[in-house]
């Protein structure tokens, strides 16, 4: 997990890149391509992550002359990445968000070996697919906030800067995303159990 703390070499490279230094830009791409791809993957899924990542870097190069170093380069990069992912999502038809009827609480079944089982802590391929599918059912803005908080480890202040919203909104989006994610994950789990049983 990472956070959007600034690093001096990044700032220096970004300033050089903003003056048209392609070599500095190349170093930034090599250093941060993992971050961009990882966030795109979590927000958009495997099918769109590569195209979105490429679009992010095109936008970064196009806009880097506007980077003044007021915030950490990684915060700026997170912002472009999330905005690109959200604009990709907006172009598509809205995905169905899992409805919560409020009749019963969503529960995830206990892993076979219990929570203390180290094998249960490791994620199976099947579980990864479920998590990604469940993320797809969370509203895009809430999903972005959830990913930044619980997968990227950003603070609420950092999330608010990345999403360009007040701190309270960032908190609300994470909270709603967390609840929607649990509901979707339980549905995925039930679907799998039903599929296995059938």
């Amino acid at each position: 997990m990472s956070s959007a703390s600034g690093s001096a070499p990044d700032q220096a490279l970004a300033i050089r890149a903003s003056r048209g230094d392609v070599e500095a830009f190349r170093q930034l791409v090599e250093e941060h391509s993992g971050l961009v791809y990882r966030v795109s993957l979590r927000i958009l899924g495997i099918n769109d992550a590569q195209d979105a990542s490429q679009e992010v870097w095109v936008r970064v190069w196009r806009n880097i002359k506007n980077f003044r170093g007021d915030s950490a380069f990684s915060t700026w990069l997170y912002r472009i990445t999330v905005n690109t992912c959200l604009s990709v999502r907006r172009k598509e038809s809205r995905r169905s968000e899992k409805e919560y009827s409020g009749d019963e609480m969503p529960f995830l079944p206990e892993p076979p070996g219990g929570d203390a089982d180290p094998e249960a802590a490791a994620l199976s391929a099947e579980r990864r697919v479920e998590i990604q599918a469940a993320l797809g059912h969370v509203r895009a803005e809430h999903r972005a906030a959830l990913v930044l908080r619980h997968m990227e480890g950003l603070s609420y202040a950092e999330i608010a800067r990345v999403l360009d919203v007040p701190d309270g909104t960032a908190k609300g989006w994470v909270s709603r995303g967390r609840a929607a994610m649990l509901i979707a994950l339980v549905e995925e789990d039930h679907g799998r159990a039903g599929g296995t049983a059938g």
Partner: protein
Amino acid sequence: MMPVGEQRWEMLERIGAYAAGELEGEVAREVEQLIFERPDYRRLAESYARMLVMLTTLGNEPVEAPEAVVGYAIRRAYVSAFLRGAEDFIGALGRSYLNAFVYYLGLRRESYGGGT
């Protein structure tokens, strides 16, 4: 009065915040008490905790961008920088020719090269 669905949703979010360790003071104690008293809330808190562990585990796994992404970004930047440079060069060359032409026609008094 809040509808039952909304109340449930609020509780759902509050227990989520508790499981994420984001509640403090009196609110945290209230939720703790509810979790202690109600097995369904306890199971909900456990489910959240499980989900958060999964998200964190997945978030901690290293992800490498495909080589195509890195290569494409760098190539685009080099091409764009080259075109920008070429545009500047051609622009400067064009301006120089224009200045020379204007000087040649005698439309400007000062000498070519910007001197007086």
